[in-house]
């Protein structure tokens, strides 16, 4: 009842100054529109750029690094065990790059509830042999279906069908740059020489394009079985285990845990690609800063209009007070005015923001570096809309706070006697 009365007074004051009110609301609408669009666009772009690397990078990579033995013979000696031993020119020990006991480790990883999936991988250094020329390259032996499920393999296969890699024996998907150098079309057979000098013929079933030129020039994909055959290894030979987690933030902690548990090297995505995190967070920070600045400007607009309204409506305020409305009631009337401008303007802003994001989402954006992208990227995260609406309400409340307090302190006697 009381609130209804305050609302009705606020409404009639608002409608008495409809045009000014609309201008104030448009200010809020504009800033919220830009805020939502800017953040959606910026985050979309961030996701795209990060995705280039992060989608294709395991959260934790388990592998065997070539390094010297942790325990040197001198440490075993009774005589020198307690001293500080300096040894120069230590050489790494002759370890095979394969992960021992892959089957057991894979099973253990798959049982871990924090793990989304595990994909084994073999990295093989090869030469693509074209006539008398040898081009250095890398073949990634992958389990095709797991690779697609966890790392969106099919998105990067721009020509041919990715599943052929599994179905066609002795097949290869060439990096786009490598294929161009070799003038290899789909269906052609190319020759590959391994580091140990073995030659093998592989059939090209597709092109792979990651968007990063240097990678596309050297990297190719083959199935894990083909790669094992290429290297002359058994079917338990795996050099890398790529682990994808449910929560990427767990990666550093879990990498340490796995390293200790399985006695192998583990690197997490944050350590391996720290530059991306930094870039993304700085970009979002800038977008937030611009958005908040827009809102503050709109807030000053509301502040101005309310101040003007209070000067114009001195008489009204005085009479409301003389007939028994308390300072708090008057305060509430003006806060209500400010909030309704904020809510109305903010809601429109969210709608326009969504519309504008949608328009941007449909603008064609073709670049050879990004084969999967056809239009500008937009992230429609509801979070931005939530933050936008909270911001619009908070700023309009603050903008209304001081004028309202001034209105509530107006002394009716001064106004009425002044006439």
């Amino acid at each position, binding site marked *: *009842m*009381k609130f209804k*009365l305050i609302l009705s*007074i606020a409404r*009639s*004051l608002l*409608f*008495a100054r409809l045009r000014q009110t609309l201008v104030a609301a448009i200010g809020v609408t504009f800033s919220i529109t830009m805020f939502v669009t800017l953040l959606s666009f910026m985050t979309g772009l961030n996701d795209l750029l990060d995705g280039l690397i992060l989608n294709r990078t395991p959260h934790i990579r388990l592998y065997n690094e070539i390094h010297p033995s942790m325990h040197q013979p001198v440490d075993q000696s009774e005589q020198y065990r307690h001293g500080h031993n300096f040894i120069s020119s230590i050489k790494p020990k002759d370890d095979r790059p394969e992960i021992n006991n892959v089957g057991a480790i894979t099973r253990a990883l798959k049982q871990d509830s924090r793990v989304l999936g595990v994909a084994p991988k073999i990295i093989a250094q090869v030469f693509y042999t074209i006539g008398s020329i040898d081009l250095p390259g890398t073949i990634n032996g992958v389990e095709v279906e797991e690779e697609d499920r966890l790392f969106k393999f099919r998105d990067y296969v721009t020509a041919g069908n990715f599943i052929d890699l599994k179905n066609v024996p002795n097949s290869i998907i060439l990096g786009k740059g490598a294929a161009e150098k070799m003038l290899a079309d789909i269906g052609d057979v190319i020759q590959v020489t391994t580091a140990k000098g073995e030659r093998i013929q592989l059939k090209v079933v597709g092109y792979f394009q990651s968007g990063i030129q240097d990678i596309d020039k050297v990297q190719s994909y083959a199935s894990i079985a083909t790669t094992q055959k290429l290297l002359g290894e058994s079917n338990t030979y795996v050099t890398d285990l790529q682990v994808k987690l449910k929560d990427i933030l767990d990666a550093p902690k879990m990498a340490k845990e796995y390293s200790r548990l399985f006695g192998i090297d583990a690197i997490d995505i944050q350590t391996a690609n720290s530059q991306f995190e930094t870039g993304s967070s700085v970009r979002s920070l800038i977008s937030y800063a611009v958005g908040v600045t827009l809102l503050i400007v709109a807030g000053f607009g509301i502040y101005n209009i309310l101040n003007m309204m209070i000067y114009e409506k001195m*008489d*009204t305020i*005085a*009479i*409301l*007070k*003389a*007939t*028994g*409305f*308390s*300072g*708090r*009631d008057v305060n509430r009337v003006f806060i209500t005015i400010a909030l309704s401008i904020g809510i109305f303007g903010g809601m429109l802003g969210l709608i326009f923001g969504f519309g504008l994001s949608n328009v941007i989402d449909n603008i064609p954006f073709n670049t050879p570096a990004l084969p999967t992208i056809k239009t500008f990227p937009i992230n429609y995260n509801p979070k931005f809309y939530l933050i936008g609406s909270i911001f619009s309400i908070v700023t309009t409340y603050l903008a209304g706070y001081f004028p309202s307090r001034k209105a509530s302190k107006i*002394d*009716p*006697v001064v106004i*009425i*006697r002044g*006439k």
Partner: protein
Amino acid sequence: MSRKILEAKNITKYFHDPETMQVLKQISFSVQESEFVSIIGKSGCGKSTLLYILSTMDTDYEGEVLIDGISMRDKKESALARVRNEQIGFVFQFHYLLNEFTVLRNVMLPGLKLAKYTEKEVEHRAYEKLKILGIEKEALKKPNQLSGGQKQRVAIARALINDPLIIMGDEPTGNLDKKNSEIVFNICKELAETYRQSLLIVTHDNEFASRTHRIIEMEDGNIINIKSNLVAAN
């Protein structure tokens, strides 16, 4: 005996701007139920100042104001607002109606604020008050479509909406012509005599004052003369 609706005890007031000056000096008097009292005096004698103190809008004074036997000293701003809302009806020299609302809504506002009755009931009561003042036909117009006399009557209706203990008027006829002043005076008189409404009216219209029950004459912040007009009171 009839009860004291309003009592002023030793009210003293200073203005500090531009220099300290005493505007009210130990004013004491009271208003009984259904009494029609007027305060007269020359411009600047402090009569309006006194009225604003009595109406609780001005709280910067010495002495005591009792409304229905309750002191207004030490009451909080919101409590005073409630007293103004419930127990005092105020009529100003200017009508001070809100042009954003219809006449009916203007009359209803203090009633809605009090929230003693539902909106429907308040509306019904507002119509009744307008009927007493003979302007129920204008209920749905905006105040700026009415004549000066009609506006002042709407203001009186607004003052009456919560059945206040006392109606205070600050030169309610100051802006009206002879005919409209007469109408407003007759309404005041009818309220006092038919509806047993107490009224305290500040005026400098001696003719108006001479027909009220009691005349308080002020000069330089003092009451110099109180004249009962019992002939008019019968």
